[in-house]
């Protein structure tokens, strides 16, 4: 298997490690770095449970190869609280009962972070549109919309 010297920043820390070049970003985060907050829901980029930020953009880490993260900044659910909106989103997801089984939650918070950082005045419709790549089977989405809208107002 081909090796690759990956250098990137994960949750604000420099990472320098030799990896198999066939590794997905998701496996790198979960298995190499041991950050288990990022989840695999489908492995096909349909559910958004594995979303992380790559240079500020929300990506499905199951569809991105780890080598593509070279020289990039990655933020996972474990590091999101350090970012504008991050901690606020976490708090309002709890307060608004936007969490049920919780498996999709990290992906939703990452997606919400991208929506709000790109568009701090996002309307409810823009929030809904922005979440179209994330599946939740528990909540009916309503409380997730409310939580994101609340986090937006608070910042």
């Amino acid at each position, binding site marked *: 298997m081909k090796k690759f010297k990956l250098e990137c920043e994960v949750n604000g820390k420099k990472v320098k490690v030799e990896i198999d070049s066939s590794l997905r970003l998701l496996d790198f985060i979960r298995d190499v770095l041991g*950050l*288990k*907050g*990022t*989840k*695999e*829901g*489908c*492995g*096909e980029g*349909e*559910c958004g*449970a594995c979303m992380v930020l790559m240079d500020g953009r929300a990506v499905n880490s199951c569809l991105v190869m780890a080598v593509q993260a070279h020289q990039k900044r990655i933020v*996972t*659910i*474990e590091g999101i*609280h350090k970012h504008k909106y991050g901690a606020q*989103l*976490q708090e309002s*997801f*709890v*307060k608004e*009962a936007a*969490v*049920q*089984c*919780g*498996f*999709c*939650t*990290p992906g939703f*918070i990452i997606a919400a972070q991208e929506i709000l950082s790109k568009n701090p005045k996002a309307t409810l419709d823009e929030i*809904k*549109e922005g*979440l*179209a790549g*994330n*599946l*939740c*089977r*528990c*909540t*009916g*989405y*309503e*409380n*997730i*919309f409310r939580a994101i809208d609340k986090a937006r107002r608070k910042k």
Partner: protein
Amino acid sequence: MKNKFFSFIGKPVERVDATAKVRGEAFYGDDLIFPGMVYARAVRNPRPRIEIKKISDKKAREITGYLGVVTYKDIKGVNAWPVVMKDYPFLPEKEARFHSETVALAVAETLSAAKKAASLIEISYKELPFIDDPLKALEKNSLKIYGKDNIFSSYTIKKGNAIKALKECDFVVEGEFKTNYQVHCYLETQTATAVPEKDGSLTVYSSTQCPFYVLDAVSAATGLPNNRIKVIQTVTGGGFGGKEDVPALVASHAAICAMKFERPVRLAYDRKEDFMSMSKRHPSWAKVSYGADKNGKLKACVVDYVLDGGAYSTLSPIVLWRGAVHAAGPYKIENVFIEAKAVATNKVPCGAYRGFGQPQICFAQESLIDDLADKIGMDPIEFRLKNILKTKDETATGQKLDSSCGIKELIEIVRDRSKWIKNTPTSIGDKKRALGFSCTYYGVGLGAGGRYLDRAGAFVNIYKDGSVKVDVGNTEMGQGALTVLSQIAAETLNASMENIRISEVDTSKVPDSGPTVASRTTLMSGNAIIEACAPLRERIFLTAADMLKTSGQKMFAYGGYFYFKDRKVSFSEVIRECWGRRLKMSEQGWYVAPKTSFQKENGQGDAYVIYSYSADVADVEVDVKTGEVQVKKIYAAYDVGRLINPKLAQAQGHGGILQGMGWALYENLVIKNGIMLNPNFTDYVLPISTDAPEYDISFKEKLYKYGPYKAKGMGEVPLIGVAPAIRNAIKKACKAKINSAPMTPEIVLEKIGEEI
């Protein structure tokens, strides 16, 4: 004692597990790492039905890290999974009966090696004829794959003489209805890890609703007694019924592998495997007739109900029973005749899915009731109000209803909130908009169908520092059980929420409490906690009164503190004093559901201990050019007894409604010639954020005397009536009467075409 106010019951307390979940600190099945852990991967039946000749791993042996193959020969216990009946072998010996059934398992040091090895293990087989249509399976000359008639189970419910009464009715309607599969699509796929311990025992980590089902199955498969197996439920990423029975199969496979190689074994399904081999909501077929007299009084109901059970019986018998009991709908009808059958086909076995056999028949029955109102010329809500079950009325099984029956009020609530009176279809261009109605009831708990399992235990242990550990046997799968049960414990002990800790189930700490299904957890585990807390409460309150130098009568207890005049002591201070007095600070509770009298012979008697109720109005817009249906708003009202946590109850409403909507409109699993064609999130369409309707949810708290703080059950009622409400709205909007679900644009267009 003065205590008029609840501290926690009825309050929108925050979820106790949410903070860990938003931080990515909740550990699900596949997040756990064990030293020396290896991976198993299923080798699956490539055809709908085969005779297995030989299984060869010759090519797999070339793979680095490959440890070996596991087949039925490695089963140390009995090769029959104990569910209701025992027709499903853990691993097939001679015959595999549905496409993708696990035939063997490959085990390897890494997941990628296990996957590779599994793909190289060869099954030599002879293809056998198969049957994939349940109605054909019922024909006299059909291929027989189960018993003499392909019938797993059948029920008859008979009251009065429905056939005769129907003939005498002034108005009669008859309809044939079909519904398709629904896939649970919990975001976390099936995952289990079996860890052999040094003392020869086994610890099993399972993503499950039913840890005791896992215990029974692993015990049967391994031959180990119950007391040498510990099942620990991992944080569970959704269930909806899909983690009722089948996690036991997945965990048993992991356990068989772990015993063979004496290593911890992880078996985690990918999404495609999960789709193809795990349980589903049964496809259904129903022929229903209703008759009413000239005054609009319902007189007779005749139902023929068939469920497509798939290749093994699993939970079909009890899913069928629940459907049959509720099949006449929540109405007062003197003459009822219901026949129900669950049929074998060579397809993926179907089982539990939120509503448990009831949404299918509710779709048929609530659609047809609406059509009957049309025929009589009555408003559909007015017609239902005329016939709806009230306190002291009898259900189809002759069960006299308890005072906790609020369905009439629910109907009035959604009627008023939706401004139903003005339900005249509106139209802008190609878009036609109207309201549709449905109402339903749901027997809480297992009822007579599972009476031997309807009990639950709880263990409450209060430590010296005032922290309290509560062990229960029912699970959190996302619905909020840990929070609601913590509220019940905190309220009963007058502790604060922070004092209470309940975690996922460990079968070695609490007695078998039955499954976490049938909206029974609040009722069963809640009552078990109250049982355990009652004697502790007495000791704590007496000690507190002593400390405050008063009697229990004059003391005021609220929110973790005890008050008398200007003095107060905290729960933790009282507990320290209790320990100082050497009082017993741990207790076990055991709750047994009240008796049910239903008899299988005549289908009469009390079927469930109590019912929850719902009413829905769907505000729907149909694009008559494309057939697309958009649900604008759902008005729903629920009677689930006392709300322990209104915020979480409302959240259950949102989620149930959207799942019901997905089943009604989008979710369309296709199995052709025994092979599933769309086992993924790309081709099996789930509702996404932009599909979510506006929700308008109300509650009517009709208290249930035997419920914990007079609560009933919440989990399932929100889903059940959504599909027929949408169907009835489509009918009102554009006259298209659709008698099948999902109501995809193609079907809507076709029906609109028929009407023109």
